[in-house]
């Protein structure tokens, strides 16, 4: 496991690795403007798995883009080891919701992509890519093109591609959104296992309640528009975890508890979307 040492740095200190401090983001000016994120604050400690959950349209993806440095005009601070995020930071590895493998590269060349950018020599980058392909359970598929893989396998290629760059913080935006429920649970197992093996600090953005409870140490519940922190819930389920945890009583209790918070926000979001559709249909 020598390849993944970067992920574990500072794991013992307990100091926050990622700090979201009073982050505010507004789109547009004047009457048509929308406040996507309104003074959100929370932090993620080294080795911790934190999920941000909220209804569709609550500004989750905006938060994802700000932390990933793809949206660099925002108020407040996103700090990694006291450094304010402005532009993509080398400590953050992003996994996107959309299909994001390169269709012209086979699995191993997809995974080796970040190393290629860094100018790592070929044999070393293939070695490291192999390691992470193995880790996400795709050994034997190295030479296949993404078009020959299932959606779940392609998403694992994306995850391996991000992990190979050795991010201190793994930042994922609904990486399983396009997958069916069973694949989602099994991939969740894979993620839990990887996160525990690597002691990988992870921030997951999701709207899926079971997924969030299954994977997280803490869950940040967001309000619908403007996006604020409604509540932060500690998930004290035992580790190491597997997807079996979803059948436990404690799991059901957490889901019910968070859902009662979330229901109000989700129904507000739904009412809002419906009224928007009545007046101005959107694509």
């Amino acid at each position, binding site marked *: 496991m020598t390849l993944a040492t970067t992920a574990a740095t500072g794991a013992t200190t307990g100091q926050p690795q990622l700090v979201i401090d009073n982050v505010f983001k507004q789109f547009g000016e004047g009457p048509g403007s929308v406040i996507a994120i309104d003074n959100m604050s929370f932090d993620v400690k080294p080795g911790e798995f934190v999920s941000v959950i909220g209804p569709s349209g609550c500004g989750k993806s905006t938060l994802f883009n700000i932390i990933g440095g*793809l949206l660099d005009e925002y108020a407040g601070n996103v700090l990694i080891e006291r450094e304010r995020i402005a532009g*993509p930071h*080398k400590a953050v590895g992003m996994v996107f919701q959309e299909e994001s493998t390169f269709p012209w590269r086979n699995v191993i060349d997809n995974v080796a992509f970040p190393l290629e950018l860094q100018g790592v020599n070929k044999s070393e980058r293939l070695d490291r890519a192999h390691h992470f392909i193995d880790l996400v359970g795709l050994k034997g598929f190295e030479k296949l093109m993404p078009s020959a893989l*299932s959606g779940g396998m392609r998403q694992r290629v994306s995850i391996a591609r991000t992990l190979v760059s050795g991010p201190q913080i793994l930042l994922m935006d609904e990486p399983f959104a396009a997958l069916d429920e069973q694949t989602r649970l099994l991939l969740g197992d894979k993620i839990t296992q990887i996160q525990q093996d690597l002691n990988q600090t992870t921030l997951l953005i999701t709207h899926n309640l079971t997924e969030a409870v299954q994977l997280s140490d803490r869950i940040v519940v967001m309000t619908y528009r403007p996006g604020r922190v409604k509540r932060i819930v500690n998930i004290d389920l035992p580790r190491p975890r597997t997807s079996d945890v979803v059948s436990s009583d404690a799991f059901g209790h957490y889901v019910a508890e968070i859902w009662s918070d979330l229901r109000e926000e989700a129904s507000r979001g739904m009412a809002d979307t419906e009224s928007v559709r009545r007046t101005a249909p959107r694509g």
Partner: protein
Amino acid sequence: MAATGQVKNPTATMGFAARRASDARSTNLIRIGLLLAIAGSWEALARSGLLFRDVVPSLFSISAAIWKLLGNPAFYANLQVTAWEIFASLAIGSGLGIAVGIILGANRFLGAAFEPYVYYLAPTPRIIFFPVMIMWFGVGIASKIALGALSCFFTVALSTAGGMREVDKVLIRVGRSFRATQWQMATKIYLPAMRAPVLNGIRLGFGTATVTALLAETKLSNQGLGFMIMQIYARFDMPSLYGLLIIVFILAGIGNLILGKVTGTSA
């Protein structure tokens, strides 16, 4: 887990392949049948005496003419001239087209401002510029190259601009998140993602460059296949005329096939 779920049903795959093979066989039969039917009707018409014998020569005299043409050094000299014209116009037109297409595709403002010009000028007949090109570049091959380059420029520019805009946005975000440099973004994301539309534009550009070069040669020139066609026409040597037309068709088809193969291999 997905490893086992991913194994394809071999019999289903085979059935599919077998059906495709039989489909391919029947389309081939239809294609060959059509050619034979055309050749048969042609020959029947030629022998019926309904039209002047010289206007619809027998297939045998056309075949003999093709054979004679293929043994004629003048044919190869003219072919070389035309091939060079097409190659040079394609190279110049595609080079400029790709450059302009990238600028229009990358810059939303420039694209909105100038693309309508390219778009509406693309289907106009460029042959009307031939007199201008003759004045600028003379009656030799330079004027044909200029006109050919002008014709394929538009096609390539439009497909490059379109291809650039259609590069999957998430792939660009992936590149940015891995902190790719501008150069890396261009060579490792944009170029491979745009390969198919650009090559397709070049293939279409090859078609227009061929048409333009031959058309221009038939108008005013002293060499090239178009010139040769007009020479034969002036002699009213119908078998050779048809023979040369068939050769040109086949050569253009082969050129298209080769370019199509290159385009088709892209992911």
